[in-house]
């Protein structure tokens, strides 16, 4: 790309027009598939209601002495994402060692590990969540499991790349001194990977808190559940306060985890 040749060869012109043709065909196909029924007749009044709701959020919902309120919902979301991250951080360790090429003698062991991890990664976590809801019933537990299982895919991949990048020096020194495999793991491998491991887990926590806010939309606990009720009953001032709460929670966790990650590395 970005070649600055002054004379364009005919080939590049043909290639360009082929790409353009392909793009036109793709867009023609894409737009023919979606029927734009236009706005609902009442979209205008609905929009006005939404705007009104967002200007006058339901402040009283922040704390209700009895039952479900915003703070408790956000706390649930936070708990779900913390538990999910902890579960995946623990479960990803064996996967990471399995998938790293330098921890086993042959690729026959590490390559299947990498394949398993990419299979876990392709599943959207909402699908994982509804499968868990079907299996264990709706609620926070399904959400925790969904985050815990789905996060393994990414965490173990990043983590195995860290393991592959470690310095072999300490390991060789320990072999020379006659250390066994467990001792090598404990004193030569683990000290090198712990900071990266913590940093990736905290980064994953940032992603998980975003997902945890939507898990409730399909019934897996957290703030999404009251949000979908408020949306269904078109209680826009309540939708607004929940949305503001989510924005504040996500921004705060981003700030805190960014600070933590900088401290660790």
């Amino acid at each position, binding site marked *: *790309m*970005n070649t600055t040749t002054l004379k364009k060869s005919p080939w590049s012109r043909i290639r360009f027009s082929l790409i353009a043709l392909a793009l036109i065909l793709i*867009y023609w*196909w*894409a*737009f023919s*598939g*979606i*029927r734009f029924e236009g*706005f*609902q007749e009442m*979209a205008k009044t*609905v*929009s006005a209601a939404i705007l009104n709701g967002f200007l006058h959020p339901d402040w009283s919902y922040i704390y209700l002495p009895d039952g479900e309120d915003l703070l408790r919902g956000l706390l*649930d979301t936070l*708990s*779900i994402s*913390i*538990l999910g991250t902890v579960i995946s951080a623990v479960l990803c360790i064996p996967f990471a060692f399995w998938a790293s090429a330098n921890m086993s003698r042959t690729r026959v062991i590490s390559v299947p590990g990498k394949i398993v991890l990419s299979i876990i990664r*392709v*599943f*959207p976590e*909402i*699908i994982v969540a*509804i*499968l*868990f809801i079907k*299996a*264990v019933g709706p*609620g*926070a*537990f399904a959400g925790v*499991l969904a985050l815990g299982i789905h996060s393994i895919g990414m965490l173990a991949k990043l983590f195995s790349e*860290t393991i592959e*990048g*470690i*310095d072999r020096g*300490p390991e060789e020194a320990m072999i020379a001194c006659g250390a066994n495999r467990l001792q090598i793991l404990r004193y030569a491998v683990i000290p*090198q*990977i*712990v900071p*990266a491991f913590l*940093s990736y887990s905290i980064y994953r926590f940032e992603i998980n808190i*975003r*997902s945890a*806010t*939507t898990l409730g*939309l*399909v019934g897996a606990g957290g703030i*999404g559940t009251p*949000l*979908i009720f408020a*949306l269904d009953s*078109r209680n826009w001032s309540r*939708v607004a306060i929940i949305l503001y709460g*989510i924005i504040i929670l*996500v*921004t705060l966790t*981003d700030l805190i985890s960014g600070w933590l990650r900088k401290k660790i*590395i």
Partner: protein
Amino acid sequence: MRAEAPLGKRTPSSIPDAPNRYKRYSIWLFGIIVVLLCSWRSGVTPYQLVVGLPQMGDLLAQMFPPDWKYLDKIWKPMMETVQIAIIGTTFGAILAVPVSLLSAYNVIPNRWVAGIFRFILNLVRTIPDLLFASIFVAVLGIGPFAGVLALIFFSFGMIAKLTYEAVEAIDPGPLEAMTAVGANKLQWIRYGVVPQVMGQFISFVLYTFEVNVRAASVLGLVGAGGIGLLLNRSLGQLRYDRSAIIILLTLAIVLLIDYGSSRIRRKLL
């Protein structure tokens, strides 16, 4: 990101102090207390894990064999999913172009303007795609249009962020040269900025497209069109063999698009 041990450089005088044992214990204690509090708050216990996981096995058993005949019926919604992703990504990318230029400090030297646009982008990016989708479904009614709008907002936030960072990292040389010969702002952007970030921009758009295909496949769960609607229905009807085929087809399409798009991206960069 890699933990590199500075072994070679270590001299006797720079041997670090032994880590403070009490500090380490208190961090562990703190972590355990946080986890216990969370599990108390959300009511998630190891007991549930032991009881719940076998049920997961039952569910998987009911999914096999998948209902292959159902493939004919889900082909069209699956294509609709891809179409939603294409249109959403495109309009998101178009909206992202001016905003990413306006948020880059080297294009707009005024810190206030760029700061305001960055603030808006940060706000947009805190809202997950499914949340956008459920709001648009409430406004526009059930259908793919709500999904398209949700993905437009979602991709806008993502592409604009990645692009303004790329714009800020460009080589200032050509820009200075153009300023020196008296180019106006538009010429400056057209011939100084655009050629330097075009490849990266296309690569960001493709990457966002990959993310959006995944997102579009679940948008239907909240009523915003695509294959998710059928997935929801099949789960509701307890036809897990149908759910299985829907999930398998989704995975196949996602993998195919990931593969194609990452090949193009590798060529671009």
